[in-house]
């Protein structure tokens, strides 16, 4: 417990201290990676490494050999191999899926809202899913993963649609500022109702609090398998929207004069965000900052071209999510920290660093 607290504090405080002590000037965005074949190969290698780390590390000590054999030379009697195959492998798959979805959705949100602080959470997705789940638990006693999946998916979608509709009122359609404002209110509103339900019924609270922490543990892949078509479609469409987002980012007037139907593109992107976020939240619960941090880091590596930002986000998102999950497994061994907690703990200092040391457009 003490070690956990120490690690936790270290992760949190270091970036803030580093940021305040160093005297860096405001950074220009200069792409570091221009050779994308090289870059993508490195990214894929990173993903594979992360997968192996995820299989190898955890509360139970497993050797590399055991992990390798669990996948390719399965021996059902070896306890270590069972853990890898039955627990960690599904967990890794879920982490990959959720990580990619969140990162790509985050990049898309930043592209649509033209706001470097865009994260899927601002569109009310997390709050909507949470409210739907808590209502389901309260009113209908749903406690199984299959049940959760559909409720959170549709809750997320409903909230995002509400945000979008409110932002759409008035001239100009759903402009970035109006989207952000509407998102904040809907999130606060749904959050208030969710808290009320949690407070009214102790059993609901007991059941919901683990889901609300954001976790990829103890969920099987079969139940979530229904979402895989959505995820695949969402990811493909998301990456394919890269070129359109580039044009959208030239500004409303310029994009329109280049012949783009900006509202249509934003709507399609919005639908993709809903698909991806809805799935991610259904799989892992509300996990913060992956959608915010990955696109930023990617952008500082590959520059402002969204075709590459989306692709690299797809690959690097899982690395962050699984990485956070592994940290959660080790930090307070033999207990676990939920992945949502770790990402928030790491993401916050990152955000503060961004604010202090880079130029951000006005919110």
């Amino acid at each position, binding site marked *: 417990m003490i070690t956990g607290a120490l690690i936790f504090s270290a992760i949190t405080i270091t970036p803030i201290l580093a940021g305040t002590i160093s005297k860096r000037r405001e950074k220009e965005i200069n792409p570091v990676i221009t050779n994308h074949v090289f870059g993508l190969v490195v990214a894929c290698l990173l993903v594979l490494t992360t997968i192996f780390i995820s299989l190898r590390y955890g509360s139970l000590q497993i050797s590399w050999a055991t992990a390798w054999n669990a996948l390719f030379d399965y021996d059902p009697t070896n306890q270590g191999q069972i853990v890898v195959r039955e627990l960690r492998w599904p967990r890794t798959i879920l982490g990959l899926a959720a990580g990619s979805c969140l990162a790509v959705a985050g990049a898309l949100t930043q592209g649509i809202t033209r706001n470097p*602080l865009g994260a899927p959470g601002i569109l009310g997705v997390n709050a909507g899913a949470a409210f739907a789940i808590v209502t389901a638990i309260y009113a209908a006693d749903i406690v199984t993963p299959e049940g959760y999946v559909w409720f959170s998916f549709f809750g997320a979608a409903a909230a995002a649609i509400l945000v979008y509709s409110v932002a759409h009122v008035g001239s100009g359609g759903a402009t970035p500022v109006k989207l952000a*404002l509407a998102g904040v209110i809907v999130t*606060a*509103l749904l959050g208030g109702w969710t808290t009320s339900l949690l407070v009214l019924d102790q059993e609901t609270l007991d059941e919901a609090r683990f889901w609300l922490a954001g976790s990829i543990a103890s969920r099987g892949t079969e139940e979530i398998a229904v979402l895989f078509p959505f995820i695949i479609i969402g990811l493909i469409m998301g990456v394919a929207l890269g070129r359109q987002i580039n044009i959208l980012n030239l500004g409303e007037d310029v994009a329109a004069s280049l012949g783009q139907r900006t509202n249509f593109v934003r709507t399609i992107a919005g639908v993709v965000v809903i698909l991806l976020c809805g799935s991610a939240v259904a799989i892992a619960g509300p996990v913060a900052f992956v959608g915010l941090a990955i696109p930023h880091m990617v952008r500082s590596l590959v520059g402002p071209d969204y075709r590459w930002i989306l692709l690299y986000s797809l690959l690097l998102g899982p690395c962050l999510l699984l990485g956070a999950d592994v940290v959660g497994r080790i930090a307070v061994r033999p207990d676990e920290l*939920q992945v949502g907690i770790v990402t928030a703990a790491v993401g916050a*200092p990152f955000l503060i660093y961004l*604010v*202090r040391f880079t130029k951000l457009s006005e919110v």
Partner: protein
Amino acid sequence: MNSLAIITPSIQSSIAVITGLLITVALIRLGDQIHPRFLTIRTRRLSGLVQTKVIWLTIGTLLAIIFLIGVGLVVGDYPIPASEALATALWDRNGEYDFIINSLRFPRIVVAILTGMCFASSGLIFQSLINNPLVSPDIIGINSGAAVCAVIILAAGGNIGYLPWAAFLGAILTAGLIYVLSWKRGISATRLVLVGIGINALLGAVITFITVRYPIERVVAAARWQAGTLFGASWDDVRTLSIGLAVLLPTAFFLTNRLRILQLGDETAITVGSTIERDRLALLTVASLLAALAVAVVGPLGFVALIVPQAARLLVGTVTGGVLIFTALLGGFFLLGADLIAQRLFAPVMLPAGVITATFGGPYFLYLLARYNRAT
């Protein structure tokens, strides 16, 4: 759990709520008819300019509060005849209703008014400083700072007596941290909001951590605190709040002028002789202290600090000292009303007041936003 009980409010309370809304609308209409618009006050030592509308609205709100106090004393699980209720509250300590009135209802009523005043005035200062209708004291971490401390104490089973002090300290320290982290040759509203988001998320992670690791019975108490409730309000709370308000509200009143100058933008403010960073710091401090005080006593009753200043602005326009007083009283009225509704609407189930503020506040806010969008 019988879900149906939740959905059917009693007829009596529904009528009360609707009547209240109608009266409010009528008052608003009346307010627009008042002339002359300004009143000059000049004595030997002081001079000032007051909007007559503000004077009338303030008096009206004060009367409304007194009316609600009466309602609150009389109405409840044990209805008490009005004359007896007033007698017991004001002078007769030995009546048969003494416990209900003087230990349960009266302190709760007064705490509702005082915390409403704190929240509303704090929200007004934040919204005027940051010139954004969606801003509330929460952006500077008051709610999450207080929540972290409160949740730790409740979950870990610490001494409940320390709870308000710990919550207050947590709120203030968090506000200070956010302020320091967003300071870069001065304070910009954007940086403040962003750093606030980061710190709030961080503290949220800590709260989540505690929520999943402690036994459920403890966690329920923590969750209940986080919803914001006036249950268990005592005369000690009244004393703390009164002292705090007595110091902070007049200070805020005298700082209103500097606030009005800051609203003109940094460049103009400097040229009319404002010391912008010092003034901003002073105003943020007073506003944070007001909010922290209220949150420490009743938990994060969000939305009061968000909606009430907006409503006040719709009625009276830009901020002045008088508007500050009016907004504070309006906040007291609103929270008292919300608490009474929360207690009686779905009787005998008692909801936390935070539910009512969220339920009415949220849709009202979406409506405000849609209207604002349509107009621009």
